[in-house]
């Protein structure tokens, strides 16, 4: 006996129709890499499972007029192989290439990773430094929310129960980087991740603009606003990295005790990761 229902939604229209009908009881299932684990662990005990896996129109990566669009149902494997993403969003490309493992990445979608809103969701910090827009759709209409305002806390977003994420858009930003620290190379939940966007003056080497986002080191992915302030107006030298490493301590709030690493360990490694992510963003390499 089960308290679940199943609805197949092969199109966006049928999916938002089902969401409108089932409201709070609805649970979207795309790849299933989060939902199926939660059902097995009895974290999800009932509800209407709406299958959106086959909506082909939401699986496209496009680039037009300096803008990148990624469908919410694009699997991580596609992002990890995409020339468009490699060229226009290296931070997201890097995140997709260290995401889970190749087998899981053939099911897992970017929309699922953002919608699940884990504090250590690997695609979220890259989208934050890219200033991505989350596009939501419901029977009531379309809505756009900046990713930096989308996640409220671990597992909670501003998505209404009748809305679904359709796609993400952002401007081309080749000068971005991403680094992940996990206990292993594959199939590991991040201990800490850092994504960075850096714009420097070519002649003086002084940082004109900077965005830093961190995952796994606070109750939700956070922007490193204090560290950003240190970088802007300064050169990328050891002194700046040291000061940024001190400033970023005020941006993060790692929990202790935690399952994957202690708070003090996370505080110790974050400055190193910030330095590497910024170097990746500015120079394409970090050593």
């Amino acid at each position, binding site marked *: *006996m*089960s308290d*679940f*229902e*199943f609805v*197949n939604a092969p199109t966006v229209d049928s999916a938002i129709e089902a969401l409108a009908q089932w409201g709070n009881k609805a649970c979207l*299932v795309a*790849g*299933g*890499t989060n*939902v*199926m*684990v939660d*059902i*097995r*662990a009895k974290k999800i005990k009932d509800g209407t*499972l709406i*299958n959106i*896996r*086959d909506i082909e129109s939401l699986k496209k990566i496009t680039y037009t007029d300096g803008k990148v669009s990624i469908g919410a149902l694009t699997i991580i494997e596609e992002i990890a192989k995409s020339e468009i993403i490699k060229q226009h969003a290296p931070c997201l490309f890097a995140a997709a290439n260290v995401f*889970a*493992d*190749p*087998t*899981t990445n*053939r*099911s897992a979608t970017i929309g699922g990773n953002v919608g699940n809103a884990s504090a250590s969701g690997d695609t979220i910090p890259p989208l934050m430094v890219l200033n991505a827009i989350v596009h939501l759709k419901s029977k009531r209409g379309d809505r756009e929310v900046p990713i930096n305002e989308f996640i409220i806390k671990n597992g909670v977003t501003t998505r209404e129960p009748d809305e679904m994420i359709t796609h993400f858009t952002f401007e081309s930003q080749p000068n971005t980087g991403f680094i992940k620290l996990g206990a292993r*190379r*594959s*199939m590991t939940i991040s201990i800490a991740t850092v994504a960075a966007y850096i714009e420097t003056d070519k002649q003086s080497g002084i940082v004109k603009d900077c965005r830093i986002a961190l995952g796994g080191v606070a109750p939700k992915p956070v922007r490193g606003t204090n560290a950003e302030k240190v970088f802007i107006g300064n050169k990328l030298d050891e002194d700046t990295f040291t000061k940024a490493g001190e400033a970023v301590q005020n941006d993060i709030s790692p929990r202790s005790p935690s399952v994957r690493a202690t708070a003090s360990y996370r505080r110790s490694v974050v400055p190193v990761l910030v330095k590497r992510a910024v170097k990746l963003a500015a120079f394409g390499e970090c050593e």
Partner: protein
Amino acid sequence: MSNKIKINLKVNGENVTYEVEPQENLLRALRNNFNWDVKCGCEAGECGTCSVLLDGKEVKSCLTLAAACDGHEIWTDKGLGLNDRLTARLQEAFVECGSVQCGFCTPGMIMAGVEYLKNGGKADRKAIKYAISGHLCRCTGYIKIVDAIYKVAEEIEEGALA
């Protein structure tokens, strides 16, 4: 009250109808219908032994909603080994290289190897290691599994498996 639903799918080349619960995963649906070559390990996406080809792509069946597979095509390790030359050769190579000890991870490892080789994977140990990295093996230390996939990749490159 039972709210089981009927799904039509193609498993190992055969059209079948399964009755599944709305929240049932593909792994249980397959095993409940006698596809016992698909192993149930962690059932949480960690170990990879339940991997199958869904529409030609290697996925973890425990993470896949069975009802969502209505109208889709699935191949398991056993079915593919009986119908596909490359898979049969890879299975032989696992025996030749001593890649099977307890054997529990083997069906998943074969599927990962098939996915790698079918997509033009080369005889490259690092790339093979990454390809099987969603799969756990507690016996072999992985070396012999990599050996087997490497061996078949070499054979493909030499044209021996055209």
